[in-house]
């Protein structure tokens, strides 16, 4: 398994607060890697450092062998790395189809408009939004917006998909549906790096898991191994919020 994304000694601080430090891990080709950790562990910051929203203070990020440390988000996207946001960021006034078309147009394949529309339709269909193509994004439900967020990223036909809590806020049926979708995506050979709080889901989906705590890597390994790591258990027991975050 060759590494698709390599992160070495990544570090970032905000106003003196160390959000991420000395973090090293890699995502392999075709792999689903779960990134878990208590609230404030720095998971979303890692995403932001990888795709260029923030430039890291230290360390190196390489994607398919190219050094992308501190590259602008649109450059990273063009290389085939797509992501979703923890708080959905739809283009509220644009239609679902247009939202997805943006992803397709400016993603890895840099498609011309007409072909991008096709890719956008496919992506929308994949997440089950094919009936709402003309609806403005702001009219979708939260679950719909989450799916749109995913469809937009998928339309880019990325090599690596970074998902930031796509399951949060969904009801059990919706969660089951979303997991179905993620499996399909993976079946198409797309690698996934996902942040998730739903333990059941992430443990069943992931090939490997990386646990973050206070910006540092606490543990890494296959799900079963990580779940039994004493350090991980301690970190989570120190986080009483865990109880509420189990699926209802």
């Amino acid at each position: 398994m060759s590494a698709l994304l390599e992160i070495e000694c990544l570090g970032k601080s905000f106003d003196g607060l160390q959000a991420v430090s000395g973090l090293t891990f890699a995502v392999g080709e075709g792999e689903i890697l779960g990134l878990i950790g208590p609230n404030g562990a720095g998971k979303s910051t890692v995403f932001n450092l990888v795709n260029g929203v923030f430039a890291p203070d230290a360390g190196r990020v390489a994607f398919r062998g190219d050094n992308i440390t501190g590259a602008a988000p649109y450059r990273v996207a063009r290389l085939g790395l797509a992501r979703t946001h923890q708080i959905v960021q739809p283009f509220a006034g644009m239609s679902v189809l247009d939202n997805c078309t943006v992803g397709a147009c400016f993603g890895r394949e840099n498609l011309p408009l007409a072909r991008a529309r096709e890719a956008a339709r496919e992506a929308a269909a994949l997440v089950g939004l094919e009936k709402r193509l003309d609806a403005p994004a702001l009219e979708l439900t939260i679950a719909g917006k989450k799916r749109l967020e995913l469809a937009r990223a998928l339309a880019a036909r990325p090599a690596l998909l970074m998902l930031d809590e796509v399951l949060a806020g969904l009801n059990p049926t919706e969660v089951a549906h979303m997991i179905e979708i993620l499996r399909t995506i993976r079946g198409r050979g797309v690698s996934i790096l996902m942040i998730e709080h739903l333990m059941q889901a992430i443990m069943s989906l992931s090939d490997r898991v990386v646990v973050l705590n206070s910006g540092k890597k606490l543990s890494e390994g296959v799900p079963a191994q990580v779940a039994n790591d004493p350090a991980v258990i301690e970190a989570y027991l120190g986080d009483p919020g865990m109880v509420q975050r189990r699926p209802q």
Partner: protein
Amino acid sequence: MLGRPFFWIIAVTIAVFAAAPLGGNVELRESLLLAAVYITLASNLNLMLGYAGYVNFGSIVFFGLGGYFCVYFMGSLGWGLAPALAVSGVAVSLAALVFGLGILRLRGVHFALATIGVNEAVQAFVTNFEPWGGSTGIYLSPELFQPLGGPAQALWIIYYLLVAIMGASLYLSYFVKRSKFGLGLLSIGQNEDAAAVLGVPTPRYKALAYSASAFLPAIAGGLYFFKGAFVQPADAFDLTLSTEAIVITMLGGQGTIVGPALGAYLYEELRGWLLTSETFANFQLVVAGVLLLLIVQFAPDGLMGFFYRRWPRLRRIFE
């Protein structure tokens, strides 16, 4: 493209502008000429304001600089109208690119303030710039109209050139909106960070749009000030005109293709009426202000936005 109804709607608009004063109606020509200038300014402003969501309060700087370049090339360097216009357009677009690289790093209100700053800085500079006549400006000899067949004929030629520029502006709005570039701009207007994450090369697109929105207004400015045979800083960089362009764009509907044209036509009609009305002659600004306030408070997407919401099918025809 040819199958799209709106392509033909633009063509008809241009044809009406071209044909209406054909009987030699100079009065109508003058009124339509102003409308054409407003439409040009508003629909180019719309590229930044409506599509990319950047409020350019100082868009008039393009118009004014275009006027200055053109008048300078013709009056002081003895160029003909065509090369003077072309070079003015290119020069101002390049200048816009340079300004843009700086101020497009700013967003929202900061960007709006910076555009005012750019306009004021350019105006203050030109006021002191002696090769361009300082505050006096540049006056052209009436003899410069001779190559166009004398002043009377020159005025007609200028009118048709301005109508062509107006048409070009509408088609530019249209093609940009229907292009990948336009889609990128619209996504920037909706959520710039998300657009960048999806791969939209935001700095390049914004700079391109800013620069493109300078080209046609610069040529229009060149024609406008050539027509008047003089240009001076107070007129060339009058912020009132760029605010009028904003009012027009907001009135018609920002981000739509017809909006700016509709807004410009209505605004010019209203202005003409206010200008000649005994009671309201002095209330042009008040009316513009009240209109803008109402739009901002109650109908932020303007007339076309209102129509589209009311009759969604219209959007298919006009966009």
